């Protein structure tokens, strides 16, 4: 136990291995990985090889990229991190789903916030039809129910231009 705390001070950093659902392994410093609450708890329980059943290699690569950048966060590079975040959320909706699900599963709060806000911003001015299509949700209302729902929001549908695009 004593060796792990002293080694991080002397420069010999403790390494952890993350294994994606595709079987790829990534070796990372513990200090980076503990941004993720789920892994932090596993480390505390003594694991050093961490299998992530729900996260594929593509998503894990992105998440590691995020964690590495955010581990460098200091007072002076706020602007840089901001730009990084901006670029980071520029994927397709499908990529974002993978990422946000993984962030939720891994409990990386900062990443969750970033992604949820980005998705919220992207659907903000979309029409109902566009949202359904983007999220691939089928309309489960009967026509009667839909009319009732419509009635509850009468004023929202009068006039106004809504974004019908799917990106």
């Amino acid at each position, binding site marked *: 136990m004593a060796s792990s705390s002293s080694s991080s001070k002397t420069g010999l950093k403790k390494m952890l291995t993350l294994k994606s659902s595709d079987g790829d392994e990534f070796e990372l410093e513990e200090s980076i990985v503990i941004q993720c609450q789920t892994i932090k708890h596993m480390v505390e329980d003594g694991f050093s090889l961490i299998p992530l059943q729900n996260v594929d290699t593509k998503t894990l690569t992105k998440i590691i990229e995020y964690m590495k950048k955010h581990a460098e966060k200091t007072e002076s590079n706020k602007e840089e991190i901001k730009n990084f975040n901006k670029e980071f959320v520029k994927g397709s*909706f*499908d990529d974002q*789903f*993978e990422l*946000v*699900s993984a962030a*939720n599963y891994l409990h990386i709060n900062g990443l*969750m916030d970033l992604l*949820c*806000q980005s*998705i*919220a*911003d992207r*659907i*903000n*001015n*979309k*029409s*109902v*039809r566009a*949202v*359904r299509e*983007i*999220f*691939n*949700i*089928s*309309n*489960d*209302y*009967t*026509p*009667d129910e*839909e*009319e009732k*729902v*419509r*009635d*509850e*929001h*009468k*004023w*929202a*549908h*009068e*006039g*106004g231009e*809504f974004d*019908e695009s799917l990106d």
Partner: protein
Amino acid sequence: MSFKSIVRELREMKDGIGNISRRGEEGRNWRNRAQSHIAPDVASFEPSEQGQWANIPPELLLHIIRRVEESETTWPARTAVLFCASVCKSWREVTKEIVRTPEECGRLTFSISLKQPGPRESPVHCFIKRSRDNSVYRLYFGLTPLIVCLVASVKMYLVYLIDKSSFISSNFLGTKFTLYDSQPPSDASIQERSPHSRRFRAKQENASFSSIQEGGTAPTPTSFPQSVGEKASLPSVSDAKETANDVCPRESLVVKNKAPRWHEQLQCWCLNFKGRVTVASVKNFQLVAAVDPSHNIPAEEQEKVIIQFGKIGKDIFTMDYRYPLSAFQAFAICLSSFDTKPACE
């Protein structure tokens, strides 16, 4: 017919619906689609058709919709929140969980929030536009029309039709106006006038007297009544009185005109509308609760303007209301003061 072919046919039907909705603006198509005989929920036969987003965990959806709700606080941008509620049933539940009442957050969201009490501290600022040529009054919140009221004449009475189940009618002299709102128990006389004074009486459950007492609450409807008839029939005024007295034993909230101050320099009576009213008019008013001294309502609460109404231009007026009145009740009170009957000042 084999199961496979049924599934194929259903899928084609679903695609067909998709095509309909692609034509033109969403808003205009809603009604058409709603009346079509094709049930859109056929997709439930095929859960595998739903994509990964459809299986989004509710807590994640909650995070996303909460952010939409928090970032869009004004109209018409707030439409985004209602769109989230229209997507499907699970989205609707999540959205309803997030959206709070106007009393709690000071914002209007679903149509029902027009019938919920306004915020306790800062009033909601609306305005009313009058079209003289077709006798239509519109209540706006920002640029969004909230309620449209048509004025019609039924026999010798003026009737203000607000929506398919609510209307205001006056008696012959124009000394009493009654608001009928969807369900019989919530009838309320909203204005009684004598040549020298006006009394506004909100006998609606919503604005009972106790609601302004310390710690008091005004009941907040959370949904519209389910069984609203196509057209509400016109009950007579006497009927309404009986119903109101029978069903609403609670002391009703009575509001009165705020007393104006004498302005020495201008040599006239003035009310402070805090810049929201710019044109002098006999129609301008501010109302405060009329309370009995025995009820121990703090003086500060008694001075609080519950609703103010005033002219800012030709055919345009501001209406600011707050708890315990709802937008709907406030609008009704204002409409009753537009009327020009022999008994009106």
